């Protein structure tokens, strides 16, 4: 597997994790009193 492909997969995985954490943070923020 080429390094470029591995990096793209890694970056996309990190992006997805970031999105998930962002969504979680937004959800928690909306629950505040």
């Amino acid at each position, binding site marked *: *597997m*080429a390094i470029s492909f591995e*990096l793209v997969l890694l970056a*996309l995985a990190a*992006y997805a994790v970031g999105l998930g954490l962002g969504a979680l943070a937004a959800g928690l923020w909306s629950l505040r009193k």
Partner: protein
Amino acid sequence: MRNRPILIVIAGALLVCALALISATQTGPAFVGRLAAATAALPDQQGAGRKVSVRFTTARGWPTRHPMLTPARDLTELERARIAQAIAAIPGVGGVHWTDGTMLASGDMDIESLRCESELLGVLAERTIRFEESSAEFIPGSEELLDELATAMRPCVGAIVAISGHTDTSGSPKVNLALSQDRAQMVRRELIQRGIPGQNLIANGFGSSRPVEGLSPADPANRRIEFRVVSMETSRPTPIDTPAAR
């Protein structure tokens, strides 16, 4: 616009891919160059030098962490294992592949059993255990060979070694099968007498059913004893030996 958040997410993903590709083209070749230099700096017996050529590019020419190894000459399985393990142990190198595809390197390769087998084959390289015709009695001279075999096997603690007896096609197949079994058993008994634990030796006879590759089944050279290291696992108690909770 209702789809706007999705479009932003997709645009973000594309941007991330583009950044990854740009950074890979900027840093990839230098990174792979460092891996190749580390491979070239390996000691000769681990194969960096003349034995194999190592290529850190994919079939399409892209830099990769997973090297392709091409042997420069015929290598034994032990040499292959040593080379592949040494290269795979370099920090940053991923899985190692051979271009002839006969072995893939992984971290848990059973190098010990290969070493044991290689030592046994080394002892038997130019000589073979010979028997009297149609008998399981050794021809004088085989005793010394058995001594050497026992010495080679002693460090292989825990190795399960299969001893297989073979014959040529002369005579009846039934007799040949019994004879090959007797011969393998005889070798096993002799090795046990020389201090090799019997539970680690398995003796089997195959008669004339497995001739040497490339030889006619009738060739007398098919009369032989072969050794193979089956596993390095020490024997574990079976459920019958292990009492269950009452």
